[in-house]
């Protein structure tokens, strides 16, 4: 398809170009709209709804809460998982507000040094907002188990901690590797109410069976956006929903048309 001069759209990629352009416009539209004040409402997520209950239970039993935003650093090979870590950190703002309110001890375990200052500032801010700035020093604790080649030392550090503190509530949201399994197992054995979420597909099975609530895949981004009220992100989520609906329409409409003898597939190959 000629555009002008010798410039032309490459055959077979025209449908894709149009689809991408429309998708960009939709996401852009909803992002701008959200920033201007029309913030979309995100549906209920059982895992997120259960957090206050779980921290309330910790308050009742007098046992602490454990939180981790996952085990991927911001640099190198894991950089692609930064969005998951940020989702985990957003949920931590929510969790730490509640622990401050209910006066429950909060343990945050970390595997990467670069997460420490971020977590420190989140905790400080939450306890300030709840009017108990002094409690940060006494009621929260950040434990750092650095990762060398494998996550085994982090896992064994957290397992040791669980045996000592016997958490009533264990919340883990972010990118995880195999330590997910070991920690969720120990949490189950200690009788903690467990809420977990990750977009690492290999780890989801372990969370589903060992935890009470699991946020699956993109749910953690939505959860992070909800608790942080990050407007561009919420707008983008609404935009993605529209693209998903368009895709569902293509799937169903395409299937029906193709079976009625209309060559729908050639449109996708255009």
């Amino acid at each position: 398809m000629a555009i002008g001069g010798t410039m032309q759209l490459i055959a077979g990629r025209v449908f894709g170009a149009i689809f991408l352009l429309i998708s960009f416009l939709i996401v852009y539209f909803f992002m701008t709209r959200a920033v201007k004040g029309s913030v979309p409402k995100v549906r209920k997520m059982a895992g997120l709804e259960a957090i206050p209950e779980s921290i309330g239970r910790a308050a009742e039993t007098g046992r602490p809460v454990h939180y981790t935003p996952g085990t991927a650093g911001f640099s190198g090979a894991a950089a692609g998982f930064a969005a998951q870590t940020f989702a985990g950190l957003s949920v931590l703002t929510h969790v730490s507000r509640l622990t401050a309110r209910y006066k429950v001890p909060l343990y945050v375990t970390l595997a990467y040094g670069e997460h420490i200052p971020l977590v420190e500032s989140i905790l400080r801010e939450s306890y300030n907002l709840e009017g108990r700035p002094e409690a940060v020093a006494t009621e929260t604790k950040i434990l750092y188990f650095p990762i060398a080649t494998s996550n085994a030392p982090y896992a064994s550090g957290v397992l040791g901690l669980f045996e000592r503190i016997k958490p009533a509530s264990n919340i883990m949201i972010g990118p995880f590797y195999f330590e997910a399994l070991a920690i969720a197992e120990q949490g189950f054995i200690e009788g903690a109410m467990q809420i977990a979420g990750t977009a690492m597909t290999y780890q989801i099975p372990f969370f589903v069976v060992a935890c009470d609530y699991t946020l699956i895949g993109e749910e953690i981004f939505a959860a992070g956006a909800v608790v942080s009220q990050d407007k561009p992100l919420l707008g983008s989520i609404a935009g993605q929903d529209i693209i998903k609906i368009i895709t569902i329409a293509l799937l169903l409409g395409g299937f029906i048309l193709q079976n009625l003898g209309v060559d729908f597939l050639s449109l996708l190959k255009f």
Partner: protein
Amino acid sequence: MSSTFLNKELPIILIFATGVIMIASYFVSAPEIYLDPLASNLSQAASLVAAYATILGIVTLAIIHINHVVKRTKGQWIYSIVALALALLMIVVGFIGELGTHPYFIWLYQYPLIALDTTIYSLLAFYIVSAAFRAFKVRSVEALILVVAGIFVMLMNAPVGAAIWSGFPTIGNWIMSVPNSSGFRGFIIGAAIGAIAIGLRVLLGKEKGVLGRS
């Protein structure tokens, strides 16, 4: 030029420009403005920048260990010396002859490195079996579906399944190619739409975490 331009705006302009070149070159053929060779050189250059970034990562790791040694961090500095010494050994041997081809270099990989790396990965077998007993509990319909599908797939993967009952591999195969394939397909399509949205946010400089900002 003010330093905020170089500091804040230039990187975002560069992200936008390189991103748009890569996307446009895929859809449009424009020999007049050398779009294709530009994109091709750009991906080669980006690969090299990634290689430099890898070296940066190794240097950062070395600095962490050197700091441990200098500060005599309790319970760590001796291990840091071991790590630094072996890294140095590997590098020195690597520089003998054509880079990284000397038999001693391959030996260091073939015996110590493979033994340690595979052993550490094999620890997961223990974790999985212990979790299977201690925490793999069917507490909901969802967990039930997961466990049943898992057991059928295991009995397809292990030859013993077919030896017990020929139906195990058949059902396992069906689970793999129908519910598993469809579930992951839905997941993948969702993730692809997510990637397009994140892509736009990155190109517009609206994504957290890019460029080390939070």
